[in-house]
């Protein structure tokens, strides 16, 4: 029996047993007495006319500077050339925009400070108490609304001619059909076949040359040094334009790195995916798809700037840190008869971030060969 229950039953016994009166609604006891409202004291400006005059002058001065600043703004707008700039220490900013900002900002600030000072020092200072009350409407209003509703129902004859109400309900439900149908615009249903043709494929294919991003210069295997990084694209990206180009580029971006083959781990199944320590990986993070090229040539770690997922490019792109769940997909590459790097095939797993239907059973895992 808890302390509370024991004292309660003891109290009951006492009340019934002896018949003494028990106060059922005692005054609530607080550890500190309610001090009530503090005494209202007049402000300095209420009793001293000179102080009030001083406050008036302050407010009027602040308001008085505003027109000067407004004219300054207008003069700056027309007179200061856009090419002029301030070069002072760490400041290297356009003069016109700085002056426009300073004049307009200061003017608004002075209006605000002046208004607050006016209210604090000079406006009437009486105190008011405003009690809270229930948010509901009073009973008369509620009854009036109910009778009006009932009267309206009567007058519409909907209770006598029921077919009116039913046909209206049918009409409203039918209007849901266009609404639902237009949801189809949210995109084609991602069936297995559609996924395979869109997000699960890239324009990489057997024999496609690896080229530099932006310049489209093909990459020769013999030109790459150990420690080199190339942000690359497939050569056939050059043929695309507009939306197609952007969609293809978002999936096909790669990074090509060359490492000392003796200091990295290349699994047996991927021995022929590389050319003398030149490895090629997808540039798209497997977490939420940021492009990554922050590569440390000494540790071979590739860090995603968005959420710090870190991949070890010296070990099949396995995740060594961060929220990414899957290794970075590797592109099998070889050299063509002119010595340029080409893809042996497309990516063997879908590149890019996770999505609900993605099958991650084929991704490279720690310990695979």
């Amino acid at each position: 029996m808890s302390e509370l229950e024991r004292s309660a039953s003891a109290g009951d016994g006492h009340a019934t047993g002896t018949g003494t009166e028990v106060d059922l609604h005692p005054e609530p006891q607080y550890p500190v007495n309610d001090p009530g409202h503090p005494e209202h004291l007049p402000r300095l400006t209420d009793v001293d006319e000179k102080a009030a005059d001083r406050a008036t002058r302050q407010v009027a001065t602040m308001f008085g500077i505003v027109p000067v600043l407004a004219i300054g703004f207008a003069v700056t707008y027309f007179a200061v050339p856009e090419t002029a700039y301030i070069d002072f220490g760490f400041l290297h900013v356009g003069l016109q925009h700085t002056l426009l900002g300073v004049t307009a900002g200061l003017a608004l600030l002075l209006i605000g400070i002046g208004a607050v000072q006016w209210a604090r020092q000079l406006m009437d200072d009486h105190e008011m108490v405003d009690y809270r009350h229930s948010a509901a409407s009073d009973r008369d209003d509620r009854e009036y609304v109910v009778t009006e509703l009932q009267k309206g129902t009567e007058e519409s004859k909907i209770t006598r001619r029921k077919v009116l109400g039913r046909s209206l309900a049918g009409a409203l439900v039918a209007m849901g059909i266009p609404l639902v149908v237009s949801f189809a615009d949210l995109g084609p249903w991602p069936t297995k076949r559609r996924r395979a043709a869109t997000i699960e494929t890239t324009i990489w294919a057997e024999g496609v040359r690896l080229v530099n991003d932006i310049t489209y210069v093909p990459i020769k295997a013999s030109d790459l040094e150990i420690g080199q990084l190339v942000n690359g694209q497939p050569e056939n990206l050059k043929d695309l334009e507009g939306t197609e180009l952007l969609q293809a580029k978002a999936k096909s971006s790669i990074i090509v790195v060359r490492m000392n083959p003796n200091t990295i781990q290349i699994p047996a199944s991927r021995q022929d995916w590389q050319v003398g320590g030149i490895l090629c990986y997808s540039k798209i993070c497997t977490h939420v798809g940021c492009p990554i090229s922050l590569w440390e040539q000494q540790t071979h770690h590739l860090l995603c700037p968005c959420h710090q997922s870190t991949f070890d490019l010296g070990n099949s792109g396995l995740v060594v840190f961060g929220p990414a769940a899957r290794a970075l997909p590797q592109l099998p590459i070889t050299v063509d008869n002119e010595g340029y790097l080409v893809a042996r095939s497309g990516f063997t797993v879908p590149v890019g971030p996770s999505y609900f239907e993605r099958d991650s059973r084929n991704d490279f895992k720690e310990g695979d060969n």
Partner: protein
Amino acid sequence: MAFLAARRRHPAARVLLLLIALFVMGALSTLLAPSQQSSADTGTSQQVTEGKALFTVQCSSCHGLNGEGQTTAVIQGPPLAGVGAASVEFQVGTGRMPMSQQGVAQAPVHPVRFSPEEIAALAAYVATLGPGPAIPSPEEYDTSGVSEEDIARGGELFRTNCSACHNFEGAGGALPGGKYAPSLLQTSNLHIYEAMVTGPQQMPVFNDDVLRPEDKKAIIAYLNDLHSRPNQGGLNLGGLGPVSEGLWAWIIGIGGLIIFAIWIAAKGVKAK
């Protein structure tokens, strides 16, 4: 011609002919050979000797007497064969080498400790240890003639290849484990070029065969253009993005609003 033919066996003829031949050869060699030798990239034997002497005193305690490098628990000096003159000019010319302290995440920038001649001598000596990238010539990194079009292309290349580490403005950024990509705001054209060619510390290599010299020049021109442009938006707070902007908004912005709110609600001076 008869005057010359008659005197072809004169005792002075041989001597004169020899003098004329020497004069012609001398004139030809002055005309054909490069008139000005840049002090750094052609390693004269004198420079190499001076460089080796300097190296022995200043660098060999970590990098070994012959630049072979050493890796012990205390000293990590990478081997220098094949790093090239550009690497030496970059590391010593920016004050990263000689490193005063071992065990830091990466060599920080210090005031440069050597004169340009000493750096050139060191570079010439290290270049003899193995073939590596040479110090680029001034016309390779002089960006005065670069067109607006190329500057725009340089911007694209910068954002593709460099901005991941060095930030979209070249203001630098953090890497794991206390390492960092340095700011490029004060870096000279030469040192940007050399960094791309040599890949110092964690930076990958972007050699001339892949990122062509004209691409490098465009990138440097873009950076110079970006950094010389006045900021029309006012204070850029270091161009660091959400970190400095957030600090400003939360501390100065919201802090200022709180101070105003306190002032509005404060009781103020009473008459009694």
